[in-house]
């Protein structure tokens, strides 16, 4: 009996020890936090005092917490950030969220109400964000914008594209409307003796020549036309589709919105790409290739044309030059369609928005100060700071308007400057590079694309069915498109898949978009 009791005591002690350890753990943690927090607070106070003495008229710096997205491996150093804080009279307290978990983090923050004063939302179609915005969790900033010199200049189209039900809840992160185009091996083009392609037929001829005429001159038949990847949108398909005159996601048919794949131009594009595939001008494994594999085909001199984002030319060139220092690249953005005019699809013109939760930004005055900060961030000097860094440390100015990156500062630029692109909203100017013809042409053609872009008429519209299952439904069409190109279904088969799409909610999506379109 006695031993039984003692055993029970032991068990009890074990359990107790477990509980105590856990609590001790938490307590220890709190203490540690307090002790480390105390001197930090002291430092901040000291700094503020010094700043006050230096410039007594200056306002108390704005304390700004921010959930920003991190696209590099590590958060930025203090070098440029402190200059930015100084220039905007702000104390930035940025929580860097790695790109890979941004959705999870935002969802958690929204659900548990652990937001910051500024929150970066990259995907504005995210349903958690949409619901929160509609529930009034964020300040509607639209009516305030007119009071600020830079914010009042924001682009109407992009504002409309980044709005929810016509209301603007944030400052957009501005992007070029379209950077799609063709990256081509200029030296190969000269080797096969063809001029720069201007039409879709020219393009086909160049691709054929790249396959058959041994453009790399190694005597082996080891090249093909252009690589593609498992992405119909940012791979080559959508861009080639807009060359054919296909609308961008949605188009008008007899005054009503209809999805792009119901247009003849879409089918013509499929036929064109199918022909390229059948003749071996596109890599055989394109439907399962990753972006890296696609790039490898181009940078290891297996293919000579890349259709996609023209900004990729910089990275492609850097890698390609390591394999062949004599390689030359060129960019083309105007390919005439069957109607004799160039077209290129455009994106929304933004890559997400900065929003201001009412739970953190409590008063209108505070909101106005934060907006003033973003207004200031939209000035050319601030823009240069976040994009280029510090003059004569990270870059030099040539002739007062061109910039040249300082080569020796490449490594520190990665740490000091690059992560800051994430917090830039407006783009007040086009940064013109000096002594880099490819980048120069890249910038110029991005600008030129605006002259013939095809916008998505449904970009700013919402459809409940689409946000619920639009992505799953889209798979039906994507699969059918691949199957058509790979010859496992014919045109009738493709039409049957469209019927399937309609039956699984497509009809509803079309109706909802048209309803929203009519209201506008």
């Amino acid at each position, binding site marked *: 009996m006695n*031993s039984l009791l*003692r*055993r*029970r005591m*032991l*068990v009890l*002690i*074990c*359990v107790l*020890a*477990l509980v105590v*350890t*856990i609590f001790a*753990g*938490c307590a220890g*943690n*709190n203490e*540690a*936090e307090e002790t480390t927090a105390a001197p930090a607070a002291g430092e901040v106070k000291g700094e503020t005092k010094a700043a006050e003495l230096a410039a007594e008229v200056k306002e108390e710096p704005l304390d700004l917490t921010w959930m920003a*997205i*991190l*696209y*590099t*491996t*590590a*958060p930025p150093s203090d070098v440029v950030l402190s200059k930015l804080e100084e220039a905007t009279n702000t104390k930035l307290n940025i*929580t*860097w969220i*790695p*790109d*890979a*978990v941004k959705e*999870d*983090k935002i*969802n*958690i923050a929204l*659900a*548990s109400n652990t937001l910051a004063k500024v929150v970066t939302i990259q995907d504005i179609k995210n349903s958690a964000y949409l619901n929160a915005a509609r529930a009034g969790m964020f300040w509607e900033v639209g009516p305030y914008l007119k009071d600020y010199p830079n914010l009042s200049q924001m682009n109407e189209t992009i504002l409309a594209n980044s709005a929810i039900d016509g209301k603007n809840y944030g400052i957009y992160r501005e*992007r070029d409307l379209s*950077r799609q185009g063709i990256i081509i091996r200029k030296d190969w083009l000269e080797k096969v003796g063809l001029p720069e392609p201007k039409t879709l037929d020219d393009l086909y001829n160049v691709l054929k020549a790249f396959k058959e005429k041994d453009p790399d001159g190694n005597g082996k038949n080891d090249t093909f036309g252009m690589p593609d990847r498992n*992405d119909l*949108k*940012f791979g080559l398909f959508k861009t080639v589709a807009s060359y054919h005159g296909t609308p961008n996601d949605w188009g008008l048919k007899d005054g009503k919105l209809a999805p792009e794949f119901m247009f003849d131009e879409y089918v013509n594009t499929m036929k064109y790409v199918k022909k390229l595939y059948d003749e071996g001008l596109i890599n055989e494994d394109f439907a399962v290739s*990753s*972006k*890296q594999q696609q790039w490898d085909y181009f*940078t*290891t001199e297996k293919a000579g044309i890349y259709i996609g*984002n023209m900004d*990729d030319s*910089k*990275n492609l060139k850097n*890698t390609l030059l*390591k*394999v062949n220092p004599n390689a030359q690249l060129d960019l083309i953005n105007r390919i005439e369609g069957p109607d004799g005019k160039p077209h290129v699809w455009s994106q929304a013109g933004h*890559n997400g928005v900065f929003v201001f939760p009412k739970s953190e930004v409590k008063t209108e005055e505070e909101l106005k100060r934060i907006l003033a900060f973003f207004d200031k961030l939209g000035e050319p000097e601030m823009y240069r700071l976040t994009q280029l860094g510090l003059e004569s440390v990270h870059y030099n100015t040539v002739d007062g308007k061109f910039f040249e990156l300082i080569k020796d500062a490449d*490594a520190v630029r990665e*740490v000091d400057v*690059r992560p800051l692109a*994430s917090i830039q909203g407006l783009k007040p100017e086009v940064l013109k590079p000096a002594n880099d013809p490819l980048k120069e042409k890249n910038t110029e053609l991005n600008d030129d694309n605006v002259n013939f872009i095809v916008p998505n008429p449904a970009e700013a519209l919402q459809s409940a069915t689409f946000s619920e299952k639009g992505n799953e439904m889209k798979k039906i069409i994507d699969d059918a498109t691949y199957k058509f190109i790979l010859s496992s279904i014919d045109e009738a088969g493709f039409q049957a898949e469209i019927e399937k799409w309609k039956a699984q909610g497509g009809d509803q999506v079309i109706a909802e978009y048209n309803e929203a379109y009519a209201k506008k």
Partner: protein
Amino acid sequence: MNSRGFASRAFDLVNYTLLIIFALLTILPFIHVFAASFTSVEEYLEKPFILIPTDWSLDAYRVIFSTNVIFRSLLNSIFITVAGTLISMLLSVLMAYGLARRDLVGRRFIMFMVVFTLMFSGGLIPTFLVVRSLGMLDSYWAMLIPSAINAFNLIILKNFFQNLPDGLEESAKIDGASDFGILFRIVIPLSMPAIATISLFYGVAYWNLFYQALIYVNDSEKWPIQVLLRQLVILSSGLQGGDVDSDLVRPPEQTIKMAVIVVATVPILCVYPFIQKYFAKGVLLGSVKG
């Protein structure tokens, strides 16, 4: 040897061939990553599959150790692994030993609660709220405490303790050992194979931990190496799909990615040889006679 039939030898041959193929399938990608991390970018681009680099280069390692980011996160990982394994083992052993006692009141109920967590979990957001309310956000504890006891490991340990002969304990008691004395001087030394195995499970889990770090820890100075590795691999392979915003994302060199994989893998690999001897030993070799 000669007495063995042809069929038997043919069987061996096939067996060895298959095993060698499987072994190569496992080891070759690793050698490739290792070799690629020590080669120059040029060679990596020219050769699709490198096993022995001809153009040796430490450039990739020079780049990743040029800032102290990788080094600091390695230290974080080592700390989390060591501290986490100690905490987990202490808690698991104490609880498993208690649950292994047949005379524990409410044992079935406690076991039921443990098994319940194997099948159902609270979900991400409720767990986040608990961690936040406990004040563990942004501290190492958030990576150590919420996953301190793994129900599966606990059950293995408990079953192992249960299989120890009762006689051992009684004899210790006759010799005057206290209850804790029995646990630490008799039961644990006898259970070294199980303890070593479970420690390894915990150790590897802590070394590979990244999700808790991503969700609970905003302070990048406390991130373990896996967080950086994941970020780097995703950035460099464009896995997130779609259009990588070239204003924001610049894919790093492939050799750098390989070097970080090596740096993040080799330390935990080094632990295996030290633990291996426990796997080979018999479980209760010579503890009870006759």
